[in-house]
């Protein structure tokens, strides 16, 4: 697409200069029109509508009935909500530290050991697969009877493991599956961040005789902070919304051990048709995410850079 820029002049209507307004304003609205329609209908309206539905009792069929704060009061009193929140937190606590630390190690290894685009391509293959596919693959590999992992574990003293079918192992298993999916991608983000660190800083450290570990801790880690903030904030927000993997592998079971928050919200909305209660819970999730994001940004001093 290298069409030469045409220079034929488009005749302006004669009245254009008489309008004192900046000439672009109507064009501006025309340009944003499609996006504004999409935004208004599918972001702004549903956000406000969701807030409104959360104050009603509504099963999708009958008229919504205003119930004031009753849904929110129920959220606070609902032991299943708290259990779902706790299960979600457990998932996040398994997923995030493992994924982030591994990705960071992998990024440093990539930076020091390989330049090959091919290797980087191999590492992001899992990220390109959909959550459903990834869940399906591990459901098969970890199958108690025929899965290759259990076939091999059977030959070791550990023996077969239940993985998804055990209340204790299901959440760590789901977390590990998603670590497998995301670690290469996060490593790529860290790697891109490492590339941005000026090499002169390292040379100076080398001249000062700083050890590898000290260099990493005192230079690499602090200078990587903007990327770290991005990786942590986006992956925590994503982890709190875990749904696909649960929907495919355990469907909340066994014995509700993997009934994470979004799955519980989904069940209330589309299995029990409690739209008001489901949206109230999703509003609470939204609030939790905002608080989490702000706290993380503050703790990680997101807006400061150590360069300059």
């Amino acid at each position, binding site marked *: 697409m290298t069409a030469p820029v045409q220079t034929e002049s*488009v005749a302006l209507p004669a009245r254009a200069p008489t309008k004192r307004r900046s000439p*672009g304003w109507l064009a501006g609205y025309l*340009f944003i029109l499609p*996006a504004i329609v999409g935004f208004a209908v599918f972001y702004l309206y549903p956000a406000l509508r969701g807030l409104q*539905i959360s104050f009603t009792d509504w099963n999708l069929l009958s008229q919504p009935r205003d119930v004031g704060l009753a849904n929110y009061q129920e959220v606070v009193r609902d032991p299943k909500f708290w259990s779902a929140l706790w299960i979600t937190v457990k998932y996040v606590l398994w997923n995030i530290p493992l994924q982030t630390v591994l990705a960071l190690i992998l990024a440093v290894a990539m930076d020091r050991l390989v330049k090959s685009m091919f290797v980087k391509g191999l590492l992001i293959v899992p990220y390109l697969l*959909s*959550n*459903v596919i990834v869940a399906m693959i591990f459901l098969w590999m970890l199958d108690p009877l025929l899965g290759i992992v259990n076939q091999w574990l059977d030959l070791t003293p550990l023996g077969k493991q239940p993985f998804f079918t055990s209340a204790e192992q299901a959440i760590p298993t789901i977390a590990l599956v998603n670590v497998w999916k995301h670690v290469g991608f996060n490593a790529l983000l860290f790697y891109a961040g490492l590339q941005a660190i000026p090499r002169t800083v390292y040379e100076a450290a080398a001249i000062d005789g700083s050890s590898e570990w000290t260099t990493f801790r005192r230079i690499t880690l602090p200078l990587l902070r903007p990327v770290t903030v991005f990786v942590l904030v986006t992956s925590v927000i994503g982890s709190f919304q875990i749904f696909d993997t649960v*929907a495919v592998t355990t469907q909340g079971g066994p014995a509700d051990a993997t009934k994470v928050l979004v799955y519980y919200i989904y069940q209330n909305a589309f299995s029990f048709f409690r739209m008001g209660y489901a949206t109230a819970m999703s509003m609470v999730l939204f609030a939790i995410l905002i608080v989490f994001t702000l706290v993380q940004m503050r703790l990680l001093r997101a807006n400061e850079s150590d360069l300059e």
Partner: protein
Amino acid sequence: MTTVPHTDTAQPPRPRRPFPLGRLFAYLGLALIILISLFPIWIVLKTALTPTRALFTEAASLWPSEPTLINFRRVLGLVTLEEAQAAGGSGSAVNFLNAMRNSLIFTGLIVVGQTFFSAMAAYAFARLRFPGRDVIFTLFLIAMMIPGIVLFIPNFITIRNLGWLNTIPGMVAPFVLMTPFAVFFLRQFFLSLPRETEEAAVIDGAGPFTIFWRITLPMSQGPLATLAILTAIGMWNEFFWPFLIAKDEASYTLPVALQVFRTQTPQGVPDWTGLMAGTFVAAVPVFLLLVFLGRRVVESLAFSGTK
């Protein structure tokens, strides 16, 4: 994958042990991680090539002793019901070819629409002046924080009220006109374009649409391709929304079709060989994307985090 030759430029001097044992371990560790990254994909392919009757006996092996394409033909609907059942299928079938077609339409429409309409909006936010511009843009930025589930429930109701359940318009509607991320991403890039060419065009009498079409878009092929790749990956893999909207088999996308195929045998042993063949088929397009646009895909993903 386009193999890029090793460009082992000299590393800047760093403190290094005289004996490279650490380096050796690091390479071994990296090789192990790559192996772990790719191993499950091999297992998918191996299982898909295994005849169902050999599933029990060959569960622990790494290689199918008598590879067959019957499972692929089965999930693509190329065999008769009797043949499928003879090959160990449950007889229940999900039409993966149809789901593949739906996925291509779903992803294609969204990639084209979202990239173009978001580019239009991004151009306006970056270059044109109009009342309310900054307020609207700030609203877009805030909207990036809203979790999917908050929007999906009311959006589901909207689509249902429009009578668009099970339709392509219903499936693409929330994504095809914009996402706040796409607008934000392109606006940041458009801001950095030099203004001189545009000013010259204005003197020649070009209007905003001419400038956008003839100058801004051609100068932005890199970021547009990046956004298109990111959108294509995201939408090809999108599960929740098509899962809500496409309840009718004719409108399943691949992730939905796979999930349905799996739940068709809730009791007993699932049809693993068929499932893995379907899984592999569903992953082929992203593999092709990586093979043909390898460097660009990797750079797009890296760029998405560090812009």
